[in-house]
Structure formats: structure tokens, C-alpha cells
């Protein structure tokens, strides 16, 4: 922890930050049992990947990363919509949104 690490913000800082956020989202997916919190953790992971794209885009001077973030955002919103619709239909049947009810899915 020298002074240069604290004052000189570079690509590494953003990459490590997004890696930690991604690990947090993964921990949420593995440890939580509520479907809604699971979906929120997935959003967290997608967002940390977006941060990586933007950081690389700035530090390498390639604008294509911004386009990728655009696509990822759209797909994340679509995924949230479908996931929540699934959660609603699970809730209608079992009156709870615990992930263990997904074990009963068949057909």
C-alpha cells in the first residue's frame, strides 16, 4: 500500500473493483435462496462486467466496448423481465419464491 497505489488510479483499480463485485454477485447466487435476490445478484454480476468493458474501452482507446455494454444492458433488462415473470408464476403456485420449489419443475 504505497502512496502511488492510492493516488494514481489506473486500469488495474477498475478491474479489481469489478472482479470483487463479480465475486459478490456469484456469492449471492450461490448462497441465497430467494429467487428475487438471485436475480438481483445476476444483475450485479452483469454490471461488474459492464464496468470492465468501459474501463478497457477508456484505457485502450477502443469505442467498441461501449457498444458491448449497450447490448449487455438490453439483454440484462430482458433477462430480468423473463426471470420476474417466472418468479410470479412460481409464486402463484407455491405462495413462496424459494429456489427449492424449482426442484419440482418437470415436463
Amino acid at each position, binding site marked *: 500500500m504505497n502512496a502511488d497505489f492510492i493516488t494514481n488510479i489506473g486500469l488495474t483499480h477498475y478491474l479489481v473493483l469489478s*472482479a470483487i463485485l463479480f465475486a459478490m454477485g456469484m456469492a449471492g447466487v450461490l448462497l441465497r435462496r430467494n429467487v428475487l435476490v438471485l436475480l438481483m445478484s445476476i444483475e450485479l454480476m452483469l454490471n461488474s462486467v459492464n464496468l470492465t468493458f468501459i474501463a478497457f474501452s*477508456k484505457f485502450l482507446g477502443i469505442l467498441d466496448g461501449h457498444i458491448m455494454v449497450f447490448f449487455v444492458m438490453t439483454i440484462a*433488462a430482458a433477462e430480468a423481465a423473463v426471470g420476474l415473470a417466472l418468479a*410470479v408464476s412460481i409464486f402463484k403456485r407455491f405462495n413462496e419464491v424459494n429456489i427449492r420449489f424449482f426442484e419440482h419443475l418437470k415436463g
Partner: protein
Amino acid sequence: MTADAFLFWFLAIVTLGSGLMVILQKNPIYSALSLAMTMVGMAALFVTLNAFFIAGVQLIVYAGAVMVLFTMVIMLFDLKQDIQAFTRGKLSGILKIASVGLLAGLVVGAIAMSVGLLTEKTTDNPVLVGNGMETTKALGQILYTKYIFGFEALGVLLLVIAVGAVALSRSKGGTHER
């Protein structure tokens, strides 16, 4: 300590703290609130990276639309405190946390190894030119020329998703129909 560095550390602490709250809160509505906070912090981080347009889209799509969707569904369910918010089993829990730690260590190690391999582009950088207008203009130009097929495909995907979400929420329990 310059303003840039202070801003980064402040936003990093806010984002990481609220991100941690997302997975630690037992009540889903508090998780949603923390997620909104994380999204706002992330948008501010995008501003520090000169991605002004993406920051605006982030605020509108995530902190606006997606969070409203989550909050509405939580209110619809009328969830109380989760009785069993976390997974059972000490051994599997330890294994899961260990695997997450392993992944984080792997990624951070890879980043630390690759420091200096990529040279930062300071001259003629399309992201850094001008005061934000030029970047947004260039973004629109490549979105509608180089990536026009992906853009159209996204439109089709959104249509399919809209129809699919309506069809899913209208079904009465699917295969478990009584």
C-alpha cells in the same frame, strides 16, 4: 490526493458496501434498495471513465426500469422476512464461499500478472477527445453502421421477450395446472 483518486475511492467504497448489502440483507426490499444504490454508484463510475452516455442509460434502464420492475414484484408478493434466506448446510456453505474466494483470487491474480502488458493509449483516444459530445457522436455512428445487425437483432429479442413475459405471467402454473 487528487480529486480523481478521491472520487474513485469514494465510489468504490459506496459500490462495494451496497453490493455487499444486496447479498446480506434478509428482507428482499432492502436488497432492492441496495441494488439501486449500487447502480447509481456504477453510473458515477462510468462518468469517471468518460462514458457519459452509458452512464445516463445505466441510470434510466437499471436504476429506473429494472429496479421499478423488481420493487413492483416484491410488493406484489408481499414478502415478509425470509425464513430461510441463506442455504442450509455448513459444509456446502463453506465450499461455496471458498469457491467464490478462489475465483476472486484467480481473477485478481490474473490482473496483477497482466499489469504493464497493456499500454494505456493517451494520444488519439476516441474516448477521451472533446467534452463528451464527440464520444457520444462516434458511439452513435458505429452503432448504426458497424453494429447495425446486432442492433436490429436486439429489437427482435426485445419483442420476443415482451410477448414471452406476458405469456408466462398469464399461464396458470404451467405443468402444475390443477
